[in-house]
């Protein structure tokens, strides 16, 4: 009964999505106020029915209803309750339902937080999101219904893949999907602007906070996925350049470019068509990722079970959504004005250069990801493109971007002077150079790649200091603290996010440079030394989990002769699937992780044990968190909360093609107050 209720809700949601995707847009075109007014209630109705559908699916999972195929294939009665709930999105079908639920959630958020926008704009935005929703719900109902029944019902479910039985499964997919789907808002704003022909800077201001929030979710989602792979896969890697990972990284890179480009469009009215294209691209890449993961065209560790009919459906959907958006863009974009004037050396041009680098990097990752497919479809043979390629291409492309990251925030809008920048940044460069050369010696061994990575990181940090100091000198009277307090949150948010990048680079550089590992046979009582720590194996004993049995090793860790903790890595065998899993034990620390994993058992209670010492590895994820915090801080900036004061900016930024803006450097550099 419950699954049928879910199915029925899904159909009702489809009908509402159809309404949402058509009437408000037509209404906005014809000036039909009642159709325009329909947008908000329909959105909220759709959300309610999708929530009911999702609730029904979760109910079926939690209550072990093995008469539902989806539940029978992806769950098991022994599975702990929170994993049964998370199994709702463990399969292709369930994850799609989560996808549309989140899309509806974002739509509701837009309908609630858009009171200050013109109604027909909101109608168009919600209409576009409705059309996307129609596609996904139809996809589910036609090819991948999560509520399909199994007759006769299975007695027991075949279990969720043990790799997914982890807390990461509970939080990582929702976060990641919030990011993917969140870009649909920026996309919808862009399409709405193109449809209406009102392609001034206003749409950029409206969609900017939405884009930032989506970017924050995507950042956290990718970070959680990386961290999960690190502690779950058992050999301590954190990024593998797998097609599915790349599929999440592509929208992130383009989204990052979009966040920066929106800033220019909003403040200076420039790059309007470029920003529109980025907004379309970021969401298109999210959709492309969906296709790659679910169609089986690429092999990946993370891919869902595949089926060609699904691939055809999504490809058709891609063609309609992305194709028509790009067509609309090609038709409308030539009419977009150029915006304000700026010099070849200016903050605008640097942001544009950074955008170029990010987009080229994204294009290269896409090329590498799809190249095997490309060659195979031209019958030129099969090749693999893996980490060596991506590292060789990505690092050289990102290096100038990181360099510009230090330059950009210090340059003026419109016109900056290179000699002046060089003057201001020479000590930042000197300090970062010196630190980068000396730091590796502190770590014990000088390596050129480490020095290079650290140079990039310290350059970013040093330029942040220079920028804040410069800003304070120009912030009038008062103590340092009052002057610090005077700066806007969006100013700090930028530096916080950039600081996150620096922390991330430090983590990556140091763990790649100084990581050590040992693969040893440990008899009971034997020890192994690593990174100043002594690991003593005191034996392994059987333990029984809720749905697995395991051998749990006890490894004492000693530092300076003192026992600091006992690490308990496990080797699990899951009852339902018979799959074995390595569950490493990790001692997380500020400057290092100790990582211990059990290998194979040997005679006399001895085990093969892998021990890793990973310096600064947690800085990788901490850096990502800082970036995300930076994004959140930007969204909390007062100009998004106080809408009354937006008038003056409008006058300042809404430049016409002739660029008749009131100029003046004070306004140009600090024109974001409001």
């Amino acid at each position: 009964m419950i699954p049928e209720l879910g199915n029925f809700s899904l159909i009702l949601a489809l009908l509402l999505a159809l309404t949402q995707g058509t009437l408000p847009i037509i209404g906005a075109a014809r000036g039909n106020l009642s159709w325009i007014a329909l947008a908000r209630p329909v959105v909220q109705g759709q959300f309610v029915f999708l929530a009911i559908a999702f609730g029904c699916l979760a109910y079926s999972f939690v209550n072990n209803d093995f008469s539902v195929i989806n539940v029978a294939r992806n769950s098991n009665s022994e599975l702990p309750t929170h994993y049964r709930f998370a199994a709702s999105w463990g399969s292709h079908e369930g994850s799609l339902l989560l996808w549309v639920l989140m899309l509806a959630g974002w739509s509701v958020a837009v309908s609630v937080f858009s009171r200050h926008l013109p109604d027909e704009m909101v109608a168009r935005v919600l209409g576009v999101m409705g059309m996307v929703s129609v596609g996904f719900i139809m996809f589910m109902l036609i090819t991948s219904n999560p509520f399909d029944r199994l007759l006769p019902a299975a007695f027991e479910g075949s279990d969720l893949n043990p790799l997914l039985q982890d807390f990461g499964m509970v939080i990582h997919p929702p976060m990641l999907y919030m990011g993917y789907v969140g870009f649909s808002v920026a996309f919808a704003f862009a399409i709405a602007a193109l449809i209406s022909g009102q392609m001034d800077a206003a749409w950029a201001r409206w969609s900017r906070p939405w884009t930032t929030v989506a970017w924050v979710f995507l950042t956290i989602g990718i970070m959680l996925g990386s961290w999960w792979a690190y502690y779950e896969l058992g050999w301590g890697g954190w990024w593998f350049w797998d097609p599915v990972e790349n599929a999440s990284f592509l929208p992130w890179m383009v989204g990052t470019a979009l966040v920066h480009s929106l800033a220019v469009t909003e403040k200076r009215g420039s790059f309007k068509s470029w920003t529109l294209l980025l907004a379309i691209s970021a969401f298109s890449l999210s959709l492309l990722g969906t296709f790659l993961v679910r169609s089986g065209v690429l092999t990946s560790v993370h891919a869902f079970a595949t089926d060609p009919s699904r691939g055809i459906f999504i490809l058709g959907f891609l063609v309609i959504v992305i194709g028509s958006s790009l067509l609309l863009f090609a038709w409308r974009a030539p009419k977009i004005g150029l915006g304000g004037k700026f010099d070849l050396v200016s903050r605008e041009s640097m942001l544009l250069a950074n955008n170029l680098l990010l987009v080229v990097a994204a294009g290269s990752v896409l090329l590498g990801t799809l190249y095997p497919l490309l060659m195979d479809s031209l019958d030129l043979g099969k090749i693999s493109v893996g980490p060596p390629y991506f590292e060789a291409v990505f690092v050289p492309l990102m290096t100038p971007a990181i360099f510009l990251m230090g330059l950009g925030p210090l340059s003026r809008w419109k016109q900056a002077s290179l000699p002046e920048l060089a003057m201001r940044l020479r000590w930042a460069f000197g300090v970062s150079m010196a630190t980068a050369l000396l730091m590796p010696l502190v770590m014990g061994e000088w390596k050129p790649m480490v020095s290079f990575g650290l140079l990039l990181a310290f350059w970013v940090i040093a330029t942040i200091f220079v920028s804040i100091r410069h800003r304070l000198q120009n912030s009038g009277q008062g103590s340092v603290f009052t002057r610090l307090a005077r700066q806007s949150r969006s100013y700090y948010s930028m530096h916080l996010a950039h600081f996150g990048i620096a922390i991330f680079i430090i983590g990556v550089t140091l763990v790649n440079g100084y990581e050590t590992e040992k693969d040893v046979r440990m008899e009971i009582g034997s020890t192994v030394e690593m990174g100043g720590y002594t690991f003593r194996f005191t034996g392994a004993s059987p333990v029984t989990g809720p749905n697995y049995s395991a051998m749990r090793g006890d490894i004492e860790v000693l530092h300076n002769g003192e026992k600091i903790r006992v690490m308990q890595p496990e080797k699990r065998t899951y009852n339902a699937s018979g799959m074995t899993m390595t569950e490493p034990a990790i001692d997380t620390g500020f400057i290092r992780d100790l990582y211990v994993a059990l290998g194979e058992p040997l005679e006399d209670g001895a085990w093969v044990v892998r021990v890793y010492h990973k310096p600064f590895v947690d800085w990788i994820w901490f850096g990502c968190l800082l970036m995300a915090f930076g994004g959140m801080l930007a969204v909390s900036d007062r100009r998004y909360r106080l809408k009354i004061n937006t008038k003056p900016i409008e006058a300042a930024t809404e430049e016409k093609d002739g660029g008749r803006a009131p100029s003046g450097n004070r306004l140009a550099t600090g024109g974001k107050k409001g």
Partner: protein
Amino acid sequence: MIPDLLNTRGRKQMILLLILALLSPLNWAKEAAPVAEDPVIEKRMLALSEDLRCLVCQNESLAGSRADFANDLRREIREQLKEGKKDQEIIDFLVARYGDFVLYNPPMKPTTYLLWIGPFAFLLIGAAILFFYLKMRRRQIEEPSLTDDQHRHAESLLKDDKGNNA
């Protein structure tokens, strides 16, 4: 070990170790032996197999995979390294049997020129377009000098701005 060859510091450490060994309730724990017979070869094998693909797996390297097939190939690489073969010879051996598919680092060939040169071509073309676009744009936008009226307007905006800051 011959005591004469130890320097004083080494000797002190030896004595300390002996004392510790005598004091510890259990016998002094012995250092665990590495799994690999020859750690140097093992290191080379791992470095090599990191960039090789396990054919039967869903996109995993030979180093990362625990599949039977990956174990066999790692054994093969280890043996060939012991025989004194160079890395490139082993790579050639595998490519002759499994094709370029086994390489995560695709070789430079006419069919992969686009792959390897593409990113840098994108960058050059992008940079050129950007440069000419910016130049053209500057010519297109003729910024008229401000009229007195607009100056006054700007002044008032600046005052507004300061007011907001306070």
